[in-house]
């Protein structure tokens, strides 16, 4: 609506109140910090704030709160101060709230305004005090040290006031201040304990409990009993049928888990039940809490529970029972309520949480890596969300860093490959096949039946996979066959020649299917592999003939080409390197990394010939229109 901003200002400056408020409303809804005409409103607002009519002042302050910018704050800061002492409480309240907003924009206003806020804490009207407390509560998030000065006044209000809303704000304020002033903790423990045990208002009770948790008030002897009381109250909320109470209890329990996990662990059953709640919000929070609560002993149980969560339930509404359909028809509700566990973002979230819980702190919680790898494979079957990449990364991370699990991993992945390529509805986790192929290729010495695995990799079903995965299939198949071939040489027997030739021929046939693939990477690898196999085939044939003709005892007594492929991938084992390892390498003597190899002066200077146009620095001219328009509006009235 920027085309109308000028007209909005015109209407705002109308002498008639009903038009003026319409203009203010339009301004509040449509102006933002880039609106050009804001500077025209300064004088207008000044005039309205100085007018005698209370509704006008009210409306002006309200509009100012919406359209405030740093320039407006600077210009109008001085005019707000007298408003704080206005006779009507409503105007004082509005002025306080506007002043708070100004304090955010302008540092001068911050200093001056702060003293005024302190005075307003002792205003005779309760509403004004409440507004001042509200402003201070917001301010304490940004400038907590400054607000510490007011702690005595606030403490006074805390112990004497009975206005629930204000008490909530004061309690929240103290929650923000206690990290900066530990002595406050001791002073606050008695009144807060008192409030927790006596207040009938649940909102206030909750805020007190939350402040105790966030403000770190569980120190000292009374602290631990206070912690226990708080957790008990929260657990009572969690068991309450009211869903709102469950939700806020979960919110608060998450905060207390880092410091008092044993207290929360007592209620683990309740938390697990909340994860299966019908309500998506409660589930999300329960998941949060669960992933914070998990430790070595509970990890397996929790992950199993979450996996069973993800396993497919009835996928469509058509499976709902006749009774359900009838009741829906009767109540006339046409809402198609999808069971929360089926929404894709939720499943993605759960899957990510499982991965996060296990991999946190360098897999601190995982005791049995074999179990974890099987969880990863299960997750790739069950998740049905695009989380394949993350599963793959986790898998590779574990396999490369944990030597002892490699045997299990390779067997597991071989089985995974044998179970078949992905079908049409489970294409979300194809990247796991990448991990499977790479693991089998890299640690192929652990394979039970290398030929079987290799032919699976090169088989017909693989053609449906994406090219990046096919490429790794090629190289893994090569490594496996190389390994198989070089194993044959350990106990070479003449009888094996025919079988070997057959296997090599079969491999050549399979690979040639990929050699004309439209994907370049696959094509290249398949072609290279195919050629190596051809070489082997030729050598085996020559060996067969050579054996028949000569009976030389020189050289090895097996076809040399069997050793051809294996060294390509197995000469060095690459170890995992820590990130700090480079720093530990000692600096060789006499090595200087800081001087330039080519001295700077010798390099060609940048272009500065006479022909190249040079840029002239142009100062931005001020818009001449403002000079013309200014005097018109400075008087504050139009036409």
């Amino acid at each position, binding site marked *: 609506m920027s085309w109308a901003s000028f007209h909005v200002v015109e209407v705002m400056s109308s002498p008639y109140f009903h*038009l003026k408020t319409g203009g203010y*409303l339009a301004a509040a809804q449509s102006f933002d910090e880039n609106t050009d005409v804001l500077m025209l409103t300064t004088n207008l607002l000044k005039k309205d704030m100085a007018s005698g009519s209370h509704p006008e002042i009210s409306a002006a302050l309200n509009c100012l709160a919406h359209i405030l910018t740093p320039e407006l704050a600077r210009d109008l800061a001085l005019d707000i101060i007298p408003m704080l002492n206005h006779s009507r409480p409503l105007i004082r*309240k509005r002025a306080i709230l506007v002043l708070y907003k100004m304090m955010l924009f302008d540092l001068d206003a911050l200093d001056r305004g702060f003293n005024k806020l302190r005075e307003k804490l002792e205003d005779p009207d309760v*509403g004004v005090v409440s507004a001042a407390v509200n402003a201070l509560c917001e301010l304490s*998030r940004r400038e907590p040290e400054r607000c510490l000065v007011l702690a005595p006044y606030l403490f006074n209000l805390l112990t004497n006031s009975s206005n629930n809303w204000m008490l909530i704000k004061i309690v929240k304020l103290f929650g923000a201040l206690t990290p900066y002033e530990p002595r406050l903790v001791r002073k606050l423990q008695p009144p807060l304990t008192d409030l927790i045990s006596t207040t009938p208002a649940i*909102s206030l009770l909750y805020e007190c409990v939350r402040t105790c948790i966030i403000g770190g008030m569980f120190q000292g002897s009374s602290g631990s009993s206070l912690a226990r009381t708080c957790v008990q109250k929260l657990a009572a909320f969690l068991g309450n049928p009211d*869903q709102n109470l469950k939700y806020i209890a979960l919110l608060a329990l998450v905060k207390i888990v880092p410091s008092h996990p044993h207290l929360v662990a007592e209620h683990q059953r309740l938390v697990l039940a909340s994860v299966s709640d019908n309500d998506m*919000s409660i589930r999300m929070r329960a998941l949060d809490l669960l992933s914070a609560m998990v430790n070595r002993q509970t990890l397996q149980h929790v992950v199993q529970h979450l996996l069973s969560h993800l396993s497919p339930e009835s996928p469509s509404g058509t499976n709902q029972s006749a009774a359900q359909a009838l009741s829906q028809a009767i109540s006339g509700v046409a*809402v198609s309520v*999808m069971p929360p566990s089926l929404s894709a973002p939720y499943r993605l979230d759960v899957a990510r949480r499982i991965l996060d819980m296990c991999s946190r702190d360098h897999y601190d919680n995982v005791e049995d890596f074999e179990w974890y790898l099987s969880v990863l494979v299960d997750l790739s079957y069950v998740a049905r969300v695009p989380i394949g990449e993350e599963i793959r990364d986790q898998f590779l991370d574990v396999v490369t860093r944990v030597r002892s699990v490699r045997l299990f991993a390779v067997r597991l992945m071989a089985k995974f490959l044998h179970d078949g390529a992905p079908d049409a509805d489970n294409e979300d986790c194809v990247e796991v096949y990448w991990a499977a192929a790479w693991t089998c290729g890299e640690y192929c010495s652990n394979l039970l039946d290398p030929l079987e695995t290799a032919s699976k990799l090169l088989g017909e079903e693989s053609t449906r996979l994406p090219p990046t995965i096919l490429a790794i299939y090629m190289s893994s198949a090569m490594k496996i066959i190389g390994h198989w071939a070089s194993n044959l040489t350990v106990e070479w027997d003449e009888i094996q020649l025919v079988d070997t030739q057959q296997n090599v021929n079969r491999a050549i046939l399979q690979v040639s299917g990929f050699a004309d693939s439209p994907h370049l990477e696959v094509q290249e690898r398949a072609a290279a592999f195919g050629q190596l196999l051809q070489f082997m085939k030729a050598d085996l044939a020559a060996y067969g003939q050579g054996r028949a003709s000569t009976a030389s005892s020189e050289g090895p007594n097996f076809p040399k080409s069997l050793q051809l492929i294996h060294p390509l991938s197995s000469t060095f084992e690459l170890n995992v390197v820590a990130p700090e390892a480079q720093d530990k390498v000692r600096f060789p003597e006499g090595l200087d990394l800081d001087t330039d190899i080519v001295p700077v002066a010798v390099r060609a200077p940048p272009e500065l010939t006479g022909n190249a146009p040079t840029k002239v620095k142009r100062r931005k001219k001020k818009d001449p229109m403002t000079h013309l328009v200014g005097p018109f509006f400075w008087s504050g009235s139009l036409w």
Partner: protein
Amino acid sequence: MIHAVMIFNTAGAVRLTKFYTPIPHSLRTSLPKLIFKLVSTRASGLCNFLDAPELQLNWAKNGVEGDETRVVYRCYATLYFVFVVSSEESELGILDLVQVFVESLDRAFENVCELDLVFHFDEVHYILSEVIQGGLVLETNVEEIAVAAKEASKARKTSYASAHPLSLGSVGGVGKNVESLAKNMNLSWFTSGLRR
């Protein structure tokens, strides 16, 4: 502070939006739609807080650390009242505030219904401005709000009357209908003889 107030009906038509924190223009229409989509699938017994993985509330962060934004909603008949608040507001307190706002609307409009929000949206805005100013709660007492709203409404009516001496009704007549006005107005200028 309160970041936004939205009212929409059970079919998804937006009746009122008020943003107290600057929001990118692209989100101004898409956010109510998204919230409606998430809220309309929730059954009535569930909690009043909307928390779903699809909800992205980054525009409201304002650079303050640890600020979690909450979406609090309440359903009244055919209307959803949605408040998007920051973590400085008490969740249960905001639920009370929604109730206070609805009661104030009820007092001002005399048995408020959705049509009142449609045809007198400016009045709704003025009443909201008595409850919340610039994202901060101004008043929580229904009586006080009603008094302040009535005063402002009266000022508007007198201003309209002074600008339009021949008018039949007041601007945005709150809750009154034309028949009762017709009974009250003075037609002597008409009946005392027409002048050319």
